[in-house]
């Protein structure tokens, strides 16, 4: 279609996408970085802190950008990260 799509869709605010809650079990992490490398929304990055096994666990940059695809959970070799859908009953 040649008509430029430029507007914010009128229903943009009505469309509710599930909000994510990302949990990181820091001391399980070995710092392989798979979750960080493969996140489609680049929501994760290495943190400065060292965990008890001397690795830098990931930290969440902007949870609101998480699409809840939970690939980080699926690809984590150490069961150190998982996502759950935020309960927005009381609003988020």
């Amino acid at each position, binding site marked *: 279609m040649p*008509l430029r*799509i430029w507007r914010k869709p*009128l*229903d943009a605010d009505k469309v509710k996408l599930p909000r994510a809650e990302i949990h990181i079990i820091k001391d399980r992490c070995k710092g392989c970085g798979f979750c960080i490398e493969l996140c489609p*929304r680049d929501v994760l990055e290495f943190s400065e802190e060292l965990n008890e096994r001397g690795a830098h666990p990931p930290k969440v940059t902007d949870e609101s950008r998480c*699409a809840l695809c939970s690939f980080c959970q699926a690809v984590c070799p150490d069961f150190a990260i998982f996502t759950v859908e935020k309960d927005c009953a009381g609003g988020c």
Partner: protein
Amino acid sequence: MKLSEFSAQTPYSHDEEVRIGVYVCHCGLNIAGSVDCEEVAKFASTLPHVVVSKDNRYTCSDQGQELIKNDIREHKLNRVVVASCSPRLHEPTFRKACEEAGLNKYLFEMANIREQCSWVHLYEREKATEKAKDLVKMAVAKAALLTPEEESEVPIIKKALVIGGGVAGIQAALDLGDTGYQVYLVEKDPSVGGRMAQIDKTFPTMDCSICILAPKMSDVGRHPNIELLTNSEVLEVKGYIGNFRVKVLRKPRYVTEECTSCGDCAKACPVTAPNEFDVGLATRRAIYTPFAQAVPSTYIIDRNLCLNKENIILCDKCIKACERRAINFDMKPETVELEVGTVIVATGADVYDPTSLTNYGYGKFPNVITSLEFERLINAGGPSGGHLIRPSDLQVPESVAFVQCVGSRSDKGHLYCSNVCCMNTIKDSLLIKEHWPATKIYVFYVDVRAYGKGFEDLYKRAKKEGIIFIRGLPAEIIEDRKTRNLWLFGENTLQKELYKVNFGMVILSVGIEPRRDSEAIQRLLTLSRNPDGFFMEAHPKLRPVDTPTGGVFLAGCAESPKDIKDSVTQASATAARASILMAKGRVTAEAITPRLILENCTACGLCARVCPYNAISVNKEMKRAEVIEAACAGCGTCGAECPFGALTMRHFTDEQVYAQVDAATEQDADKKIIAFCCNWCAYAGADFAGVSRMQYPTNVRIIRTMCSGRVAPKFVERAFARGVAAVLVAGCHLGDCHYINANYQTQRRVEKLWKKMERLGLSKDRLQLLWATAAEGEKFASKIKEMQVIVNSVSEEEIEKTRGLLGKG
């Protein structure tokens, strides 16, 4: 594969006396107005072999044709020449008449004294008459050498390809399918429906657009004779009328037919984007169906949006959500190969993007919207559920202004009228009144064109409903920062006063423009386009849905801007035209293919090398070329290439062309231009110049060949040898050649001639090369004008020198 050979002597023995009848047509005053037809007829009677010569008012009329038939019987005519309009118009008519009188239709010849004479020399009666005589003389000279020909027949595949799944394509496919032919309907988008699916109501009857379209859509979806190829594009079309080989790229949907379109996948999909179908006013997911009534209803995944790139499934939300396990990310694009006999082009049109008209502020001011956006807004199934709300605050505006001719009838945008905008606006204004009667509605227009059936009534109704029509488009639209309302400034040209009016929302009535991908389709099917960019019909009046390419037809907005009714009408017309071919099952190929003169052929293979259709092959054992007639399109570039005269181009033989040249150059050659024009572009362009009454010098003599590729260097040399001042070789634009690429040979040969002329110390300006489409009459006319300067500058000596140098050749 049928081989055609030439057994030295023609069916007609040469010793038989040639008896030619000449008929000069007045065409009312179209010709007689600027040519003395009686004198031309008198002159004709003096020409060799002419036994009858008459002039009459309308030769194409029944009486006119009867006259010819009677004379053929009475005077034992064995050649007929009609001097009237363009052979592109009436050659078929007269050929048929000849046949009815028992004369082989290839023994008929035409002199084009209307489009290429009377109409282009309206005010030079003498000179026009002189030219007409020359043209008749040339025709008679050629006629004397004509031989009867038998046409060969090619079978037609009884399947059709329809390109484009809008309402036109749907209608054409349904008509053909119902007639019983297998149809392939190819649509670029995920669903059929096209523009009509986006529109809310149709004018003038105010039917719900999708309500009347949806049934047709589902019909094509499940029609036993129609194979729907959505999300697909035509990549390649090879072959010729009745026998097209088509390659279609079928892009993957990533969702299988298992899909029940329950929508669970879309609910689960975590990524959104503006929905193109709603012109971006509503959101969709990465897995989606463009609209509720889409056909096929199978969902589709937008891989550019989807989180899953490079075949790695990062997100499996849709897969998990789909109970039918219909989602398959491993689908690959496939190329489908089809064989069809006919092609219908219904590729539709685009909508003008008003962003470039900065004075209207589209894209800057949220409450300035296009008429297409309006259709989605007012549509119950649209983003606002049918509520007319303005984007800035989602409130219903108290006042609305329509601005007409946005992108139409203006050098900003397109020069042509987009045909539907006026009625569309009237319809839209009434829709608003229907739901929100209090709304203040203004329409700013240039002219209101309510030409169609029931249109005027609707216009009247709008006025009665209190919609205010103001002549004079706003010069500028400015937004009120606070209210987001819009100020329109302009002049009411009827009251000759300036206006400054404030509105809650402005709707730009945007025009229709050719699709961006038109050029691709044009190349695929060797079509031509008019200056506006829409596809050209074979004849604007008599073959309005045919194209110059046999077996290819046009429907809908691809041909020109038009409303739904016209699109559907045209679609049915194309279906009928295509059915005629397929019902016949065979098509006769014009007997203009080459004949091989065995004794001259050295099997050098030059002809095979230049043939665009690989219709000639060299048989090494038998030491000869072989012509596959079914594959040959008759461009004649092989005949022009053969150095041994082993290939005779039927109906366009060397002798016949020489005869035309010689006849044209008997008197005042040194003042004349010989123009070799290809039938499809240059000659049609010259006709178009005539139709548009473009005036140019009278001293040009046009010789028609099927393709400029037929023009052998020796033809040009012959003309110079006969002492002409200048020669023009004209054909289709490179890349647009009706015979794929034959005109590249033309270019090569002309360049060779230029070198030769330079070598011989002749001014190469005297040989001109022109690329002009059927629509570029202006270009042709001005070319002749500019060549007039050359003609005047050529000296006696130079002409003599040329005769000397090229004469021996």
